[in-house]
């Protein structure tokens, strides 16, 4: 057996061990540890759920004696400040964009006083936004927990087996399936659609986000921008997008949870990913022309 074949087998083995370690505890917590309305029965379950991909990364490296090379733990701030800034700014822009897009989808005219009323007044809106920002800091361990698993371990391993776009797509689908038990109970996409539809939508959303997050990770050689993006996106999306979208007179989240989630979590990130791809292609073309 050649070295290449041995390496490939070892990579597959590592991926399998990683997936077992990342999926099993989360599926147990989500299936047994949540009620039918998707509420966690245990506080520790809800607190720890986003840490398991990181724990799986560490354990897989220890079990397979891989060591911690290519762990993407370096900050690499030098020359990468713009990507760090983007990791803050992009999720904020996406959240605002998601709200505007959803308001446009719902139609029926726009009245910002409805948004303010929904938020509980201007001061309460300011307090909620500040709370989101504070959660982005205190919840950093959670963003890191997921990204240290998916972007710093699974995707680079997949890249050893297939071309980068395919690796991102496959790891995005796996990331989406990791959320499956919660989505099946109505998390994010509601209960009015078949669980399979919700899970498929989540997989698409995860593939699209995976492109953006992997781009940030590969550009900086560090997992932190992706972790920052992830936690800022999680903290701000629901609050900002819902507050903006509520201004639309026809917006009713209870009635249209699935379509709203599709706009906010699938179509808008997709648009962002396409814009990034176009910019990158143009940059590459300009470089080639200069050369």
């Amino acid at each position, binding site marked *: 057996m050649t070295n290449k074949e041995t390496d490939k087998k070892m990579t597959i083995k590592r991926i399998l061990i990683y997936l077992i370690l990342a999926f099993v505890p989360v599926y147990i917590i989500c299936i047994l540890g949540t009620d039918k309305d998707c509420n966690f029965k*245990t*506080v*520790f379950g809800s*607190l*720890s759920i986003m840490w398991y991909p990181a724990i799986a990364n560490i354990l897989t490296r220890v079990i397979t004696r891989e060591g911690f090379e290519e762990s993407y*733990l*370096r*900050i690499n701030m030098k020359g990468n400040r713009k990507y760090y800034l983007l990791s803050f700014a992009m999720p904020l822009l996406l959240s605002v964009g998601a709200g505007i897009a959803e308001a446009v989808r719902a139609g029926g005219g726009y009245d910002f006083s409805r948004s303010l009323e929904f938020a509980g*007044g201007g*001061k*309460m809106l*300011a*307090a909620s936004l*500040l*709370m989101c*920002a*504070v959660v982005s*800091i*205190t919840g*950093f*361990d959670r963003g890191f927990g997921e990204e240290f698993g998916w972007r710093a371990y699974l995707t680079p391993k997949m890249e050893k087996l297939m071309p980068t776009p395919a690796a991102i797509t496959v790891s995005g689908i796996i990331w989406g399936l990791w959320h499956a038990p919660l989505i099946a109970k109505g998390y994010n996409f509601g209960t009015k659609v078949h669980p399979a539809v919700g899970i498929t939508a989540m997989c698409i959303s995860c593939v699209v986000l995976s492109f953006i997050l992997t781009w940030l990770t590969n550009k900086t050689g560090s997992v932190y921008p992706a972790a920052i993006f992830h936690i800022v996106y999680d903290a701000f999306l629901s609050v900002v997008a819902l507050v903006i979208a509520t201004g639309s007179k026809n917006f009713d989240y209870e009635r249209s949870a699935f379509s709203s989630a599709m706009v906010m979590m699938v179509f808008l990130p997709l648009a962002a990913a396409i814009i990034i791809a176009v910019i990158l292609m143009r940059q590459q073309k300009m470089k080639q022309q200069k050369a």
Partner: protein
Amino acid sequence: MYGLLYKDTIIMRKSLLPTLVGILPVQFMHFVGVLGEPDVEISNIYKMMSLFSIICTFYIIGMFQQGVFEPDERKKWAYYVTATEGGAKAQVGEKYILVYLASMSTVILCNCMNSIAIDVTGDKAVPMMGITFALFFVQMFLRAIDIPFMIAFGSKKGNLLHGAILVAGLFLLAAYLLFGDLSFFGNSMDGFWDRVFELMEVGNNVKVMIVLLSAALAVMPLYYLSYRLSCKLYLKGVDGYDK
């Protein structure tokens, strides 16, 4: 920078063990709720025990954080590390990262133990995550002020100076409480506590919430500014080292 972080982790191993030995028994105070059925009074005692355990943990970690500077306070090392590629920025930055990691680990540990206690004891244990996060920001704020002193004057002198400023501040506060205008507090101890409890009802008082959240948010930029200041002060502080 990561080499320095690794070096410090190895050096701090010896003080990490006593720190953990100090923290773990304190953390078990979260579980005091399993001892019996709570009435209102006992439930308050559980709350106090949980709060005490979290404060003690942050205090112990605070002492650990202040100890991370001492091993590197040698002129030879300081001049050597300044001449390396990362320079003073890497040396100082590594300390700031280590201090941040220690505080973040404390938050994770306290929240884990608290959430396990809630799951084990049912309603008897009290959620303390909010207080843990508040203490995290307080600790980061204190370190943002402490560290430049320790960098500029060495950890011993820096701590003394910082302590002296703190005591002077307390004297000023005491003087104000003795001779100043106390009408804001209601002019009586009862009025003072009524006012404090009123302010503590953060959920009902959006203004207080905005002020507290803004203060919390300001801590991280302050921590970064403190790092920049410490980088500038590093070589000046080296001249004052004993060895």
